[in-house]
């Protein structure tokens, strides 16, 4: 088994993320009273945890420079591919459409919006099937959640 020495990008990025999160939590927690070990203030526990997280971030990040472990060699390429942004953007957008629409135009249209926008994330969109599943889902969610479970939803814009 040849030992490859090269940077594991995933671990490097993960370590960096943990480090940043940890420092951010710890620094923000300094705004709250720390207290003593006996009488901990609201800042004590988060500062300690934040520092621990930052430390773990360093360990993960530095580990990225070591030779790869058995599992990672089996898993193949350790470098990060450039993420495809289309699904991430469109899925996020569709959920936000729901948030924007539910109170203004109601459940039926909000459901339709989620289906339409999220379907764009799929590489070969067939509009007839999108319209069909939008109709089915909109009527199903109105029937189940608004009428069946009596959740207090606005159903239509009117």
């Amino acid at each position, binding site marked *: 088994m040849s030992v490859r020495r090269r940077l594991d990008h995933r671990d490097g990025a993960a370590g960096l993320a943990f480090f940043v999160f940890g420092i951010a939590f710890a620094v923000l927690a300094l705004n709250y009273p720390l207290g003593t070990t006996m009488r901990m203030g609201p800042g004590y526990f*988060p500062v300690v945890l934040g520092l621990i997280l930052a430390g773990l971030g360093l360990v993960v990040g530095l580990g990225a420079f070591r030779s790869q472990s058995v599992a990672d060699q*089996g898993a193949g390429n350790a470098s990060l591919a450039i993420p495809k942004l289309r699904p991430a953007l469109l899925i996020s957008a569709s959920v*936000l459409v729901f948030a924007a629409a*539910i109170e203004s135009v109601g459940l039926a249209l909000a459901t339709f919006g989620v289906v339409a926008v999220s379907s764009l994330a799929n590489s070969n969109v067939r509009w007839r099937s999108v319209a069909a599943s939008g109709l089915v889902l909109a009527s199903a969610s109105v029937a189940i959640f608004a009428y069946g479970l009596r*959740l207090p939803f606005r159903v239509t814009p009117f």
Partner: protein
Amino acid sequence: MELFSQLGHGFEAALTLSNLGYCLLGVTLGTLVGVLPGLGPVATIAMLLPATYGQPPLSALIMLAGIYYGAQYGGSTSAILVNLPGESSSVVTCLDGHAMARKGRAGAALGIAALGSFFAGTVATLLIAALAEPLSNLALKFGPAEYFSLMVLGLVAAVVLANGSLTKAVAMTVLGLLLGLIGTDVNSGTERYSFGIPELSDGFGFVVVSMGLFGIAEIIHNLEKGIERNVFATSVGGIWPTREDFKAAWKPVLRGTFLGSLLGVLPGGGAILSSFAAYTIEKKLAKDPSRFGQGAIEGVAAPESANNAGAQTSFIPLLTLGIPPNAVMALMVGAMMIHGIVPGPQVMTEKPELFWGLIASMWIGNLLLVLLNMPLIGIWIRLLRVPYHVLYPAILVFCCIGIYSVNQSTIEVAFAVGFGLLGWMFIKLRCEPAPLLLGFVLGPLMEENLRRALLLAHGDPTVFVTRGLSLALLLIALALIVILVLPSVRQTREVAFHED
């Protein structure tokens, strides 16, 4: 026998027409979730939590529990027929289950999986019933120090049993603990990390975090890599296993049940690890290990029994100690809280009908699952053919409705998008989200008990090691860590978790 009279009362509570209906609904939904890839039990239960507001508490819990163990059954169906685990605990079932399907023995594989699971479910139900009382009595002796140590043990176990890198799992747990601290501090009333956003004064909702991390993130990830499914169901064959199959499988079923029951009780354990461990053991014990991966029935029987047993016994720490051992149980805490039940040892004495009714419903649910899975397999096969591009918008719709209906809050829907993107990033960086969710639930509890324990001990931190029970819990946690860093265990673990 007091145990049986209590179980009897449980059956009385669970066997009402409406509770039977909820049980059937739960296990059917569970099977559905297990069969369809891209939607795990965590996301489903989170999605349906708000829908249980109006139900009586027992019915709600029966339904949600049914989803969890039902998913173990459904997961095996897609693992065997499509070579895709619908549910993460069915990953190893793919190896031999799908090989059997390729040899035209899909029916036998499905049959033995269902029967093995039923047996395991029966044993696990009895085990929960038997262990509940002694463990609850023990838990009543717990003070804040013991609770803190228990949670440390729980988190350590969650990390040890997590998939992939250990340091990353620890970091995810700590990040979860920190995220859990967002909101008003119970001791001082100070708002932490809320940035003046009123919706954050209570912290992030559990449903928001879990739907983002497990629902939305998963969809983005699946779409990015593209899901392909080839249903292999030309000839399913007879569902009933042959005499030789039974002969080969009964011992693995017993061993799997035993192992699963044991690992399920451990905090952090549950279905996933149980199935891996059971498979590894069968391969070690086999006279001819080379048959494994080629369609050995033992390789289906053992892990399927183990994951079902583990799924069920993981209710034990929740019901007796009030500590959720895994992400699904953490959601069950949420479900119980919604109905004004504080999980813990007092549930058994204060709400015996609820407690024993839930346990009895698990056995009933397992029976229903055999009925659903053996004769109705054709329906599930047809469902497997639903293409993902039809499926994922539906999942998204239900996620959105689920999040919104918790507090009728649109900003929480937006928060879930943030957690979805965070979760997607973690998937890409190979960091598992389950320890984060567990930390998120335990964070506030841990801080509260730590602070209370130190206050009671006048700031003396040795309180955690001078009290016997607390020391014992910490020593078990330490032992887990030591075992894990042993080189031989480490290597096996890496190989075992390498399958996905």
